[in-house]
């Protein structure tokens, strides 16, 4: 862990995520206002003592909504990384370790999936399953499978002929045991980097989906939804757009930098 702090990217990313995690922790204990409570007499008020970051066009406290939005972003990011990661590693490890036909079939499927650009696959799945948090997670998790699969495939290919694997085979260890007990722990650092980048991707895609009105449904606050609401009153309250945008950018940037930093140190740059 200590060696990673030699990378500037890692340090900056770590700082940003620490900041966001602090916001998350505070939001779990205390929110300044009820995020969905409307004060119709107090619409689009500028930041002040009563509402630190002002209110939106329905008179709801922007800070509380943003904090709730951060909670949802973290929740989605974690779930997507866990589900997408588990599926991706499972698929990629078989492709990489066994090679041959298995590899060809799996990689062809992954390539076909990657033909669906950006959020298109997620949009298609949401159209079929309906929106809401769990379907958004499912759609984004499926979207993140290729990233994990490719990473673990190349990792398993690197180690499948290593001496320690041969030794285990001679000892009579089964394929699954070699794959997940012996090879997988060697890929922790690469996996951490991929997970971090996938987290950033999930937060960004969720914001995009919610912006289109397809992800998290109102009245639940989500950063993407806040952006589209803020865009409607950009002429009267330009600062409102900045708040969700900056939070999304800091979250995504933080995890991107963290992932890049881990990669940098691993590759010995």
């Amino acid at each position: 862990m200590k060696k990673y702090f030699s990378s500037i990217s890692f340090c900056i990313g770590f700082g940003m995520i620490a900041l966001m995690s602090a916001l998350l922790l505070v939001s779990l204990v205390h929110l300044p206002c009820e995020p969905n409570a409307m004060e119709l007499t107090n619409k689009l008020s500028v930041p002040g003592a009563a509402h630190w970051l002002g209110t939106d066009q329905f008179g709801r406290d922007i800070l509380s909504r943003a904090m709730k939005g951060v909670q949802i972003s973290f929740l989605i990011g974690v779930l997507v990384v866990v589900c997408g990661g588990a599926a991706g590693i499972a698929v990629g490890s078989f492709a990489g370790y066994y090679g041959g036909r298995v590899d060809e079939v799996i990689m062809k499927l992954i390539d076909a999936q990657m033909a669906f650009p950006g959020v298109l696959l997620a949009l298609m799945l949401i159209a079929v399953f309906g929106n809401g948090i769990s379907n958004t997670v499912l759609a984004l998790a499926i979207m993140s499978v290729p990233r994990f699969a490719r990473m673990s495939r190349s990792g398993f290919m690197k180690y499948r002929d290593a001496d320690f694997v041969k030794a285990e085979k001679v000892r009579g260890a089964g394929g699954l045991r070699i794959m997940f007990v012996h090879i997988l722990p060697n890929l922790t650092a690469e996996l951490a980097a991929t997970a971090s980048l996938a987290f950033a991707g999930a937060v960004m895609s969720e914001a995009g989906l919610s912006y289109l009105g397809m992800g998290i449904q109102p009245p639940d606050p989500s950063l993407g939804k806040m952006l589209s609401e803020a865009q409607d009153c950009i002429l009267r309250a330009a600062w409102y757009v900045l708040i969700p945008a900056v939070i999304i950018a800091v979250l995504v940037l933080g995890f991107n930098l963290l992932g890049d930093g881990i990669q940098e140190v691993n590759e010995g740059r």
Partner: protein
Amino acid sequence: MMYYCRKAGGLLVTLALVSLITFGVFQILPGNPAYIILGVDADPMQIEALEQSMGLDKPLYQRYFSWIRGLFAGDLGTSFRYQQPVSQLITSGLTVTGSLAVMTMLMTVLIGIPAGIWLAGHGGRKYSVGFSMLSQISLSVPAFCMGIFLINLFSVRLKWLPSIGYISWAEDPAGCMRSLLLPSLSIALGSSAVLIRYVKVSVTNQQKQDYVRTAYSKGLRKSKVMYRHVVRNSLIPVITILGMLTADILGGSIITENVFSLPGIGRLISVSISSRDLPLLQGLVLYLAVIVVLCNFAVDLVYSVVDPRIRLK
């Protein structure tokens, strides 16, 4: 020749898989699609009629093949929302999305390649740290966020460019460029950051090669070595990245078109989802995926022409 046959075979397999995925996803739709489209309290007669017109009473494989046959004949069914043939809607959307994608790609290349070469040539730590921060920031701000900022700056504050809407090329070429400038810039900022990185790494790697040392030792000037030898060789791998960026740019345009209210594919996608217009959505998804696959195939072909060594691998 073998190489091209193998590539073409791979292309067919990928296209078949893509069409199967697109078709399959819409089949796992829980419940009866006719109910979903018409709503729960629809007339049973209406539902039955719709089921028949959608071919829901036929077995799965027949439906798939008739869909594929329609695809080749340019008939993807009728959109419920617009009451127009899907293929007609897609064609009109493609002209907008296509112009947006071409303009974005041009911007990406015009920003990405010179900046990447420059950064590799002036490889001081000061610049590279500054640049990598800048590129990280432009990669981390989603394209639609960038779009909102650009609207705020150039349309609301400076009033230089229109904030939303689209003017077709046939109507007014200058107006068309103006209406696409902000949307394409908001996508290109992110994708050019990706390109700059690759160009920089590729040029830096080439500079370490033996032939560069030879070129210097026979007395060539730095600029000549760079542009005659290094840049030409290092742009070959960059072609692959351009193929990958096509998917990114099309994906980015789905959301960005909604920010700028452009009547393209992205706009059609969100309308088709919110109005549960499944034939339209299915057609749109398939078209976009096929475009991406074909672009990547074209990139592979170009690559093998530019660098024949690849055919031997």
